[in-house]
């Protein structure tokens, strides 16, 4: 014996013409014996059906907004590539600076500019860098 809930899902499935012949016969018998139930199902269904007409929509500028955002995302992707190049450049500069400190044997502001120990005998900025 099927429960009422099962008849309801069968009735719903039948609306999609997706119910087996056996179940359809069974459903018809149930509906004949319970006409009030069918009225209730139909009432709820009519209410749900009324929702199909479009009342939910996005703003008029929706398409433009999406495209603007999408362009922004694409630019960000390219920015990412340029940031990689920038990071590589910074890393190379730091390595060169370390090399400069090592060659001058000093970690000071003067060494950063390549002028640590600069005197009258040694005036070349590149003296320490072979």
């Amino acid at each position: 014996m099927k429960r009422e809930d099962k008849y309801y899902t069968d009735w719903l499935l039948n609306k999609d013409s997706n119910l087996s012949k056996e179940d359809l016969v069974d459903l018809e018998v149930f509906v004949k014996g319970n006409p009030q139930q069918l009225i209730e199902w139909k009432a709820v269904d009519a209410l749900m059906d009324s929702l199909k007409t479009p009342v939910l929509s996005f703003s008029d500028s929706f398409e433009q907004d999406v495209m603007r955002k999408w362009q922004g995302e694409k630019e960000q992707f390219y920015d990412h590539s340029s940031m990689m190049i920038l990071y590589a450049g910074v890393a190379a500069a730091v390595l060169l600076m370390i090399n400069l400190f090592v060659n001058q044997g000093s970690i000071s502001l003067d060494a950063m500019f390549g002028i640590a120990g600069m005197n009258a005998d040694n005036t070349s900025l590149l003296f320490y860098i072979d």
Partner: protein
Amino acid sequence: MTITNDQNPEFELITLLKDGDERAYFKVLGLYKDQIAKTVKGMLGDVQEAEDVGQEVFIRFFKSIDNFKGDAKISTYLIRIAINLSLNELARRKRKWRIFYSGDTIEEKLVLDVGTNPMEDEERKEIVHKAILQLGVKYRKVVVLRALHGYSFKEAAEVLQIPIGTVLSRYARATKKLKEILNPIVNEKGR
């Protein structure tokens, strides 16, 4: 699986999208924005966040277009993204509300102002939409697909990737719950 022209009527559009043709992007937006509005606003309500989530749905789709194999229709794919992003938004909303409330009930409660006067159609729909927002998310998903999109139960099962029996039982439970909420309207309609 790769798509061919014979297998998929959307092949040309997908190819244009993959080529970065701007007109194709606009075409997709024009074709599917109403469906996505129904999904997202059906899940979240008619709020500003729904508009943002809707935009994000298309951005995600455009970003992943190179990986799109065409084994599902564009609409199915977009609706899946829309449902997932809506669920994320609901989770975010829940977290946000938890900061302010320690109670169990976080969902906005609907105050139905249904008098004895016959309501206008639009007003009625708005009330039903608000009632849908009171359903649990798993029920809301099937109601959105069936009632708002007009999908068959089989199609809804495909979109949600769950068995048709589960879709049916969730829909039946959802309508039962909606009936309880909307009893005055249902009675009026049944007369």
